[in-house]
């Protein structure tokens, strides 16, 4: 098993938004997509996805609708709402800024100070 990092608080929401931004997905699909795009570097218990998912629905960022999956099972599909897309952009920018700042900070050497 590869070394899996603990999820930073708040990152799960952003990952869900990212996963859904690539196209409508059902819950299990979102989980697979996250595994795919993070190369399984992040570990969450599968059930923990849902409270986060529903929180986003309640905030009006995701829109759910029932449909049929590739496995021919009834499943609820999620897609981004307009507010969801806006939030996704903002969060991405914010994350990138923090990441860049952290990277710069951690990459600093004695000579640069």
């Amino acid at each position, binding site marked *: 098993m590869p070394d899996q990092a603990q999820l930073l608080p708040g990152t799960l929401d952003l990952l869900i938004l990212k996963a859904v931004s690539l196209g409508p997905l059902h819950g*299990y699909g979102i989980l697979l997509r996250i595994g795919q795009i993070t190369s399984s570097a992040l570990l969450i218990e599968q*059930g923990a996805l*849902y409270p986060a998912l529903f929180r986003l629905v309640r905030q009006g960022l995701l829109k759910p609708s029932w449909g049929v999956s590739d496995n021919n*099972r009834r*499943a609820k599909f999620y897609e981004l709402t307009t507010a969801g897309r806006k939030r996704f952009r903002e969060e991405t920018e914010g994350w990138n800024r923090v990441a860049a700042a952290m990277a710069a900070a951690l990459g600093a050497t004695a000579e640069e100070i």
Partner: protein
Amino acid sequence: MNPITWLRSLAARLFDRDGAAREIDEELRAHIAHRADDLIRAGTDRARAERQARIEFGGLEHYKEESHHALSGSMFDGFFHDIVFAVRILRKSPGFVVSAVTALALAIGANAVVFGVMDAMIIHPLNVPDAKTLYGTQYGADLEFQSYPSYVDLRNRNHSFEDLAAFNFMLGTVLNPGNDPQPANGFATSGNYFTVLQEQPFLGRFYTAADEHGQGSAPYLVLAYNYWHARFHDDRGVIGRVVLVNKHPFTVLGVSSPEFGGTLKFVAPDFFMPIVEQEILGGNSLNDRANTAAIFESFGHLKPGVTQQLAEADANRVAGELVKAYPKEFQATHVVIGRTGLTAFTGPVHGFMAALMMLAGMILLAACANLGGLFSAHTSSRAKEVALRLALGSTRRRILRQLMTEAMLLALCGGTLGVLGGMPLLTRLSTWQPFAGAPLHIPVSTGASIYVVALALALLSGFLFGIVPVRLVMQANPYEVVKAGATGKVGRKVTVREILLVAQIAICALLVTSSLVAVRALVRSVNASFGFEPRNTLLAGVNLATAGYTNDQIPQMDRRLLDAMAAIPGVESVGLVNNYPPLVYTAAFRENVFNEQTHDLKLSNIALAPYRFNVSPGYLKAAGTTLLEGRDLNWHDDKVSPVPALANRQFSKQMFGGINGAMGKRFRIADGTLVEVVGIIEDGKYMSLTEDQQPAILMPSMLYNDPQSYLVVRSSRDPNQLAKLMRASIRDLDGGLHADIQSWNQLLEVVQFPARMATMALGALGLMGAVLSITGIFGMATYSVSRRLKELGIRVALGAKRIEVLQSALGRALRLLAIGSVAGLAFGLMASRVLAFIVYQATPRDPFVLAGAVLAMALLGLLATWIPAQRALSVNPIALLREE
């Protein structure tokens, strides 16, 4: 929102809750199914794949619950959960719930009832349009504007009122719509009465100022709605019908609206008629400026911008003009203008209601203190649960919210019960007519405002007692509690609970003291020397004018009535008194008395203004009044000059310096008649029980053809039988003469009414306070005994005496009781000053009251600590130590 829609929306939400839960369940299961599909595709067999998928998913129920929270938000659901949880917790301690809800129901119910009366008496003005600007002269403040000509002058000359109306009582009037004469009580009013009040009739029309054209010009009748409903059975055809009023024909013009109850709050008139008819019906003269019984009060709407002070100054200016114009008849000193509705009782009523509301508020505070104590005991016994919840990651805020929900739930239950119990009481009060003969009633409001107040009080008390255990939760240290258990330390430190208990006992002692003061005063007033003996005496009120007798027929008829009464077997003595006997209906007349030498009979020369009663010979014996010196009146006294009269001791003292010098002395009364004192009688009470000793004179009734009088019949026969015989013999004399027969003691109830009401109210509140204190002390004592049971057991094992065990078990509770009682007693002594307005000689510095209060509190302590004391004494050290 009405209850139906509320229920429907609640049901929808609950249903939706189920729907949402089903959807979440389906979605999570779909997830697991998808995962299992993938695992099967990867080569796992079905059973193992499904198991694997479930394990990877994690706690299904847990995530379902969390998802549900995430989806619905925690606002309503959290609240809903709190309530469900609170109900579950409270169901575990039914004893606590029952005592808490009962205490609150009593306290909130008491407050609702007191508020209902206060609302109607004080907060709400009269039930007429723009009642807030309705002001007028006040009965009892100054009599001068109570003659009709002076009222007319005030109406025409003032600059403060839009218009000025006036009214007077028409008590004991006989209304005969067909063949059924019945007494009724109404108002005789100025023609503009309804116009000034801006009232609209329910049926027909009102009379107006335009209907009046002098004496006897407007024989019209307006019926009050309630009277019309009861007497005429809602007959709309009554309009235009002729009704006999004291045998004079009157035409019914209209019926007033159901909301309108006249212009005095505690009097509900049966009918209204123009005051120009007053004299014809045997009432007071309208032409005589000196007759100050012609008008009860006048009132009107103040002009915009005119204040009470300005109106009063204006009225005094008019009074000044009248003093100059009619120095003989009019001598106003200071005219008072006040709000219409409570007349001269405004001050005492306000004082009493404020005191009552304060006491009711204290009961509520005591209940809150009591519940706060109970609640924190309840909570501290749950310390382990609270600690566990904290340890498991619940926030303190969450736990506090839970406690508050429990407190509010209790408070709302108590409040609901309190209002449910209080409302019927209020409804009963509002329709209660304490006296058969008088149209008195207690104004009570039963509207929505009471529910609002009760709800507010419930929420407030819930908050107050819910806040008590907050400190307990904030300081709870989960580690300590879980480790050591909830036994805690037996501290010497004064706790919040103890302070609350002392406060509660103090409030109780205060209430007990005040109610004892009231009871004592009532007893004293009943046993006081009235100057007559009300037992074994029936009074028959007759009004010869209503039966059509002319003035010169009256003395003869009076004599025949007296003879008929005396002829009834078993009657010991009979007498007659004009108008009202002493202490009946708070009505007594004063006479202006001048020295014999005074010939200029103006008001500034008055020597004394004693109460005056016109009585027949034999009245003294029938009334049981003791003759101290001289002789009683006799039937020949109408032919003697100077006119013979009886004087009481006080009159003799003030007028002639003592009873020795008074016999045979002479004085003049207002009409110039020379009067000679032929007998001295004992002092008594005349108008009210709380009056200071007043001078009084009795004049021979034969000289004055007063149509209204009371026959005084003394007999030790059964009063009901006697009343029947009296009625029969009066009917034999004149079938059209109505007699109002009651015992003197019954009629005394009217004068005692305020004191009785005060005693009843205080007694009820005092009882509640006592019950609350008993539960409080009981709770405290039981708690301290149960906490120290082990210690007590060891003490007993080591040979402690019973008294020592008791001392260590209950000493603290009893000390608190003592401190609280002393504080309460001190407050009670101070508060009793307020009571002096209402009850007869209310003095707290009465050994009976002091001893009674101390005894009551001691008894209360004994009662409350009896069971815990028994428990402490029956401690069995062996059994106790074995249990550990």
